């Protein structure tokens, strides 16, 4: 559905996005995982047309952005990393404004607003100014707003950053519901767990490059399902194994403090880059 080909963005000397290609299928929940500064936001902003590309092609359903800008824009819903609600407008008015900009008829607008407020659990706050909502509510309102015009592709840039753990989990449930309704989602995150729980496929990003792309399961199997962590004078190290038995055998042979656990996406990231995803 979304095809990105040889995408490059340069800011002077700095290459923020370096030759990125990927393809996202209809109905898929796709995650871009990488540390701060990896180029996730820049990628998303090129897809939503806010940032001009240095080079590369982006098409949605075969329509290129350069030739069919309006058609492409209608298919996209955007939830940016920072809050960009109209703080001096109510939750309802924020949705209403979006519906009006996208030319939705009055009746459809009202029904959609009611439905989305319900879906995001914000019905009771409909008449409150957006700036008075909590961080989690603002984020949910931004998601509702992006969904107003029934886009086919939802772009979510770090949707749970800055939220506390309980709220983050609620947000995950909400995003899962969205995905099961058939919407195509492109999400960026620097939270390992978020990518593992939500995404059908994950692209690992580091310094503007896509370094791996697969299902979380396959990625984990690539390094080995089980990791034995041990500490020596150089710090924490890990050794990967296919099965728990192999890991146990290895751990038994080591002295000192060892820990056996299932491996996760962070392990792959560290293995590939010598760098952690989360700070």
């Amino acid at each position, binding site marked *: 559905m979304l095809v990105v080909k040889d995408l490059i963005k340069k800011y002077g000397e700095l290459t923020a996005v370096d030759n990125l290609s990927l393809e996202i299928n209809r109905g898929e929940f796709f995650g871009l995982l990488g540390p701060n500064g990896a180029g996730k936001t820049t990628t998303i902003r090129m897809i*939503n047309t*806010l940032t001009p590309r240095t080079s590369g092609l982006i098409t949605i359903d075969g329509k290129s952005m350069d030739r069919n800008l309006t058609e492409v*824009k209608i298919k996209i819903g955007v939830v*940016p990393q*920072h809050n960009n609600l*109209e703080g001096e407008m109510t939750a309802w008015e924020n949705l209403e404004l*979006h519906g009006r*900009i996208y*030319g939705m008829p009055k009746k459809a607008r009202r029904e959609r607003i009611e439905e989305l407020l319900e879906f995001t659990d914000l019905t009771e706050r409909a008449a409150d100014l957006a700036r008075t909502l909590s961080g989690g509510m603002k984020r949910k309102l931004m998601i509702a*707003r992006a969904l107003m015009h029934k886009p086919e592709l939802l772009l979510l840039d770090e949707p749970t950053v800055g939220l506390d753990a309980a709220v983050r989990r609620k947000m995950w449930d909400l995003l899962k519901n969205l995905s099961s309704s058939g919407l195509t989602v492109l999400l960026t995150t620097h939270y390992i767990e978020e990518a593992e729980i939500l995404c059908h496929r994950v692209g690992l990003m580091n310094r503007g490059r896509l370094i791996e792309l697969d299902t979380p399961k396959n990625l984990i199997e690539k390094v080995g399902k089980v990791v034995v962590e041990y500490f020596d004078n150089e710090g924490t190290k890990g050794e990967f194994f296919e099965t728990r038995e192999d890991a146990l055998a290895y751990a038994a042979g080591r002295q000192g403090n060892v820990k056996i656990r299932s491996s996760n996406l962070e392990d792959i990231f560290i293995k590939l880059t010598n760098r952690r995803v989360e700070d």
Partner: protein
Amino acid sequence: MGFSSILWQEAIFFKRKFWSITTGSIIAPVLYLIAFGWGLGGGMRIDGTDYINFVIPGIVALTTMTVSFSTIANSINISRMYEKTFEEFMVAPLNMWVYAAGKITAGSFRGLYSGFLILFLAFLFQTGIKINPYFLFILILNCLTFSAIGFIIGIIIKSHADMGKFTSFIITPMAFLCGTFFPLEKMPFILKNIIWLLPLTHTSLGLRSSGEDFYSMLIHPGILLLYFIVASAAGVRLCKKAE
């Protein structure tokens, strides 16, 4: 549609901040009226009328200029730099011409509102100022022109401090020099000609134009219109490039 959605949004802000907008746009002109109209100019006659009736069109010109300009410049600047709400419009399938038209129209309404407040006061105090359709025509053009200039400034300026600079160096001097408080003829020759090229001059002249010849009555809206068209076109071009 896009155009009406922008006006709808501005209408909500207007309703919500009605009193602060109203008091905010009336304080400066009332001070001018008191200080220059009744204070300094009390009993003075100029161009064959009471000074107060000379200065009211000037105050209307400069107030509608300032209000139209700053409403749009600030709203776009804040939406770009601080609230980032500008992005909502940029990702939407909205033609930038439509966005500009909506913003400029909204700013003009605010300018007109402040103009009518002053005229209402003038009427209340029975100054005897006369208004004709040509007056209204010039007033509307003035609002459109300075909204469009505000649009450009809102798009290109990087910070609130730069906005202050533009106001201090361009808007405020125009407010005082463009035939608002005293006739252009009192200016030295060179300055007079430079000032004659500025848009606000033609608003001041146009608003007082009863008795002018047909050619002059054509030139004032003509120059304002020219500024309006150039500013709008430039604004839209810049808007498409804005990141």
